[in-house]
């Protein structure tokens, strides 16, 4: 097992020659011959086509293909994976993909690497392996040569050896040289790997760009989810709820008109049942998206949540209007906190404070319950933390066993 994590670390260790690293380094450089020869052939063919112009984009993109192979080959000497530096096209289709690739600096770096590789690097790689491994091995094979020939052998086609002691000495020298040359060979492989990484791995700015992409797509998902919530709420309100209200009204009138008897009793029962369904539906709709949040903003919605809480809540809320996603995320976080405090923490009193200072919304829910809440334990809190993270916000929960619990939500945002 290799205990050294990188080639460079391995080089400084005493057990370098006993580890797999020298072989990995030699393998890395030797395998360069295969891809290199292929790259050179491809380059020549595509350069030929390029005279007819159609091959030009292909030539550039061939660099990208080669780079993908090279990044994989890098794993031989570099355990840290080298991701591709390319972005994902914003729209589907070959055209968009091609446009993006040809405008990315990474593509041109890969192309440059391809040229350099096909014309200069791979012959050097092969030459280095041949010199550092091939020659010493050839010297080490002198006794075999002598045995086959019976009369004489030439060490690496030069020095003539005719005696067994001479042949054995040449072999010993060859092996010693091999062990010695493995060091510069490994160093060369290391340098080659670094050059490859430098040209083919994503730059800092490209990584940041991609992180930005991920954040934006997450934000889009949350926004889509939010829009869907509103749509469901609207549909329930305009559809099911209206019909139920009309139904209770009809049943209410029927109750007035029905003569006393079993029929009237049944109408009465149906009437009361619809009333209960309506109340449940109302709570459901409110839970999906309270109208007051859209109409009056977070401050009013928090007061409303406090009104509805099963545990008495003291509120201290002073907020301007904020962006809808921020208001919504903060509101649902507080609702979850209030529910948890009542359901799991057996709290008797909750203190809710909300402030917006210096472009930061800070909301705190403090309860006197028994504590033990954990944001990582896969509760509703995890989902909330994710949702806040999309907005660059954070959720912190301080809830030692035995209580009290302090839940704090912070979201950077500007006031309207």
């Amino acid at each position, binding site marked *: 097992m290799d205990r050294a994590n990188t080639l460079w670390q391995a080089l400084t260790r005493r057990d370098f020659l006993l580890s797999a690293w020298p072989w990995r380094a030699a393998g890395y450089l030797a395998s360069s011959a295969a891809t290199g020869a292929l790259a050179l052939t491809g380059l020549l063919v595509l350069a030929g086509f390029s005279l007819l112009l159609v091959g030009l984009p292909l030539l550039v993109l061939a660099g990208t293909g080669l780079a993908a192979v090279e990044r994989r080959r890098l794993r031989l000497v570099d355990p840290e994976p080298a991701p591709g530096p390319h972005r994902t096209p914003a729209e589907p289709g070959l055209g968009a993909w091609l446009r993006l690739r040809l405008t990315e600096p990474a593509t041109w770096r890969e192309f440059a690497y391809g040229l350099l590789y096909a014309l200069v690097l791979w012959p050097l790689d092969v030459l280095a392996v041949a010199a550092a491994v091939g020659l010493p091995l050839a010297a080490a094979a002198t006794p075999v040569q002598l045995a086959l020939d019976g009369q004489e052998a030439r060490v690496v086609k030069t020095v003539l050896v005719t005696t067994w002691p001479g042949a054995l000495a040449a072999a010993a020298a060859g092996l010693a040289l091999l062990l010695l040359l493995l060091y510069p060979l490994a160093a060369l492989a290391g340098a080659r790997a670094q050059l490859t990484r430098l040209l083919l791995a994503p730059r800092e700015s490209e990584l940041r760009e991609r992180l930005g992409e991920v954040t934006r797509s997450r934000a889009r998902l949350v926004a889509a989810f939010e829009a869907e919530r509103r749509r469901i709420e609207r549909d329930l309100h305009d559809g099911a709820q209206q019909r139920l209200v009309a139904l209770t009204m009809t049943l209410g009138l029927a109750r007035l008109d029905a003569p006393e008897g079993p029929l009237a009793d049944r109408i009465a029962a149906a009437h009361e049942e619809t009333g209960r369904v309506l109340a449940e539906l109302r709570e459901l709709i409110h839970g999906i998206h309270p109208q007051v949040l859209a109409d009056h903003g977070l401050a009013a919605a928090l007061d409303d949540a*406090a009104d509805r809480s099963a545990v008495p809540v003291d509120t201290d809320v002073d907020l301007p209007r904020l962006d809808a996603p921020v208001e919504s995320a903060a509101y649902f976080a507080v609702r979850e906190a209030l529910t948890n405090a009542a359901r799991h923490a057996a709290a008797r009193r909750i203190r809710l404070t909300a402030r917006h200072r210096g472009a930061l919304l800070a909301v705190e829910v403090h309860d006197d319950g028994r504590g033990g809440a954990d944001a990582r334990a896969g509760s509703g809190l995890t989902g909330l933390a994710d949702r806040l993270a999309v907005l660059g916000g954070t959720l912190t929960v301080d809830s030692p066993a035995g209580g009290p619990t302090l839940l704090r939500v912070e979201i950077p945002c500007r006031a309207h």
Partner: protein
Amino acid sequence: MPSALRVVLAEDGVLLREGLTALLGRFGHEVVAAVGDATALREAVAAHEPDIVVTDVRMPPAFQDEGLRAAIALRAERPLLPVLVLSQYVQREYAAELLDSGDGTGVGYLLKDRVGQVEEFVAALARVAGGGTVVDPEVVRQLLRRRRDPLAALTPREREVLALVAEGRSNVAIARELVVSEAAVGKHIGNILAKLGLPPAEDTHRRVLAVLTYLR
């Protein structure tokens, strides 16, 4: 109070609009105009000068609180126009805003579900038309869950009385509800007004102020 009220109704749901028209007709009231949005509501009021306006909160075009805004605007133009607002769900802010309009008399804020309790609904309508103040018991119930200053000073019984005042009940009705004498109710109300720091003035007006304090 006229027995047959001329009503302007604003509700964007056709089903409910028709239903309410039929319901009010059943009790001898006349819906002189049934409209579907806030602009039409204001035009209908100008055209018909009704005895009372019944309006939904959420209406086109934005489906926010257009109905409530229209009601408040109407009250600003015609302080004596009784308005009954029906809401999808109870909201203290909405109720408080509505009661703030005019002097708080002749307004009602009811949960939409209440129209199913047809007799109570029509009774509430008549109370509002007669200058009374009606606040949905659900709003009251929610508020009671939260102990709020200056209500902290009130005894449970006094809060109960105040809740019934908010629902627009008269002293007689409150006495009947709580099974106490009318004099006892009067004494409770006196204590409430004193504790809320409302100086003696015209009695009905102070009752509204007490309700407003209660809502805030």
